């Protein structure tokens, strides 16, 4: 009898939690490295269209973004609901695109310029007119690599 009692009193040894901070730190560093903070506040609401034949964008540092969509709710009082273009942190006109591309290029190394891509993030409800205008301006600026930003999915 006493034999069994002895065994029972030992019980389960407590799991050491000493390595818990290490695990947490590991996770922390992972998220610190992968995190990308949104650097621009969007003034236009953009829901990109869905597509299946999509490719991942490489080299995020070489991508300049052009947002197209109707202004968000709180901006609609002053800007209306018609689709507008946003470059960096402000609404822009179509003819400002060339200037925008020029400033984007200045910041980059000369060797990297041919690899620069312009990502068009347009809302699925906008008309092609504004997109065509943007594309024409990009052609004039000689920024020929473009990417229509889309989500993965079927219609």
């Amino acid at each position, binding site marked *: 009898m006493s034999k069994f009692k002895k065994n029972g009193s030992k019980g389960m040894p407590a799991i050491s939690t000493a390595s818990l901070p290490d695990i947490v730190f590991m996770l*922390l560093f992972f998220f610190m490295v992968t995190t990308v903070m949104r650097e621009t506040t969007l003034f236009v609401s953009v829901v990109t269209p869905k597509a299946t034949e999509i490719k991942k964008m490489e080299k995020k540092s070489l991508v300049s973004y052009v947002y197209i969509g109707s202004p968000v709710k709180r901006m609609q009082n002053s800007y209306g609901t018609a689709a507008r273009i946003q470059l960096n942190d402000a609404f822009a006109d179509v003819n400002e695109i060339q200037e925008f591309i020029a400033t984007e290029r200045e910041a980059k190394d000369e060797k990297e310029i041919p690899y620069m891509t312009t*990502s068009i993030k347009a809302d699925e409800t906008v008309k092609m007119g504004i*997109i065509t205008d943007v594309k024409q301006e990009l052609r004039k600026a000689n920024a020929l690599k473009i990417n229509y930003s889309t989500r993965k999915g079927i219609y």
Partner: protein
Amino acid sequence: MASKRRGLPEINAGSMADIAFLLLIFFLVTTTMDVDTGISRKLPPMPEEDQPEDDSQINARNIYVVLINSNNQLLVEGELMDISQLKEGAKRFINNNGIREDLSENPEKAIISLQNDRGTAYKTYIRVQNELASAYNELRNENALRKFGERFIDLNKTQQKEIKKLFPQKISEAEPKNIGGDS
């Protein structure tokens, strides 16, 4: 002896985990893992002023004309077409290899000409682009399977190049103009 034992008190590291958790949660919340995806296209360079337009050498049978009007309807080679049939139509055109008189001579010469109206919805335009890209991707895949017994994406660089040369993705977009449509 007594003074030695006093020394510097050790800092309690027990709260380290809490601090790390706090930071971890902050980064967890702020992180955006979404990778940007999209359809990549190359725009044609601006035509030069004095350069005359010459697309006369291209045989009309090698051009597959896709028009989208402001009502988002498709006119493909002069006929109304539903968007769901576009992929099959494009595949038939590209992979014709000179069999039918009105379709392309071979995939290398095949050009898809895309024209849209200013009133076309962006959604429709992307869908058309997607269907065309999908037609090319499927053809490349079929060819890769037949030739190398592997899918296109699994091939190595030189093999991919070979297939790409056989099926170059030529989607030309006309200079913008108004096609119109009943509104």
